[in-house]
């Protein structure tokens, strides 16, 4: 493993790492700062890359830890708040038969459902649903067993299913 790894392995991961950080802190600017710190830290430790078994998983772990540290240091966790850029995402699909208001409400409900998951469930859920990772990749990334990955994902999906059913009943 040499310096080229920064361009061939680490930099192509930047969007995925950003989404992981964003999934934890839920603030775009903070997530970008975290990613920049992560990449600078990785660059400063380039002599150690050859000793790292799975550099990709290592990048995710560093990002997760730095994002969790940042979250802990943030004075107020802005649960359920919608920043302006995220808000724009609600209106990208013009084919949708749903009104803007409905989509806002639905998104808010999903955000609350995600927020109600445990930290492990949320991370596993994000890596599977958003990044499309296999169980093994998630296990290596989070340094947990594959069984725990499956259990966490199962619980997360069941909670989301219950939440969607409740939301649907309330809406009728």
């Amino acid at each position, binding site marked *: 493993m040499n310096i080229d790894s920064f361009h061939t392995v680490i930099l192509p991961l930047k969007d995925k790492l950003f*989404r992981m950080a964003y999934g934890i802190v839920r603030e775009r600017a903070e997530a970008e700062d975290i*990613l*920049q710190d992560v*990449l600078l830290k990785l660059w400063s430790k380039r002599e150690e890359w050859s000793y790292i078994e799975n550099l990709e998983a290592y990048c995710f772990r560093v990002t997760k830890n730095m994002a969790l540290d940042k979250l802990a240091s943030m004075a107020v966790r802005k649960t359920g708040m919608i920043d302006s850029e995220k808000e724009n995402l609600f209106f990208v699909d013009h084919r949708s038969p749903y009104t803007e208001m409905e*989509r806002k409400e639905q998104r808010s409900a999903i955000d609350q459902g995600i927020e109600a998951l445990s930290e492990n469930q949320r991370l596993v859920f*994000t890596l599977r*649903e958003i990044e499309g990772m296999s169980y093994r990749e998630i296990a290596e990334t989070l340094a947990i067993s594959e069984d725990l990955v*499956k259990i966490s994902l199962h619980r997360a999906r069941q909670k989301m299913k219950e939440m*969607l059913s409740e939301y649907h009943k309330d809406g009728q």
Partner: protein
Amino acid sequence: MDNKKIDSLLEKYWNCETSVQEEKELQTFFSGGDLPEEFRQYIPLFFYIRDEQSVTLSNGFNERLRNALEGEKRERYITIRIFRPLLRFAVSVLLVIGMGVSLYFISKQDNRSHFVETFEDPNVAMQHAAYALEKLSHALRKTETASMETIHFIDDLDIDWVALDSLNRINLFEIDSVKSKE
């Protein structure tokens, strides 16, 4: 894709039995419009997934990262440049101090005599010297007497020195042959 297949896929999905590919199929299905009523309650989840997948870094990030990486390199260079004259000065001071301390101890050692005169009166010194020499002479005599006694004792044992010397050169068989000759 017919509704039965979607229903079955969804069931597998909730039980974590779907592959990544099957989950992509579900996402594609739910991103289409005009879905059957029975599936509509799950739309928000798949919309959420699609929204989150489309989240990417802002356009200016690469530029910021490049500046930060270059800034880090420059910072290191500046740090070395700033501290280089100070390092030279510190090394010079340490060298001078080290040489000073060494010279001090060397000169101090040279001034110190190895044999210190402790007697004022030469007669007393002579007496002490004579006593010390007498003790030494007595000890040597005693050793000589003891050595002579040991030699006489060994002579009295009447050892066959020829046979003993031959042990170093001949084997046991030869020893036996010597004995038989005797």
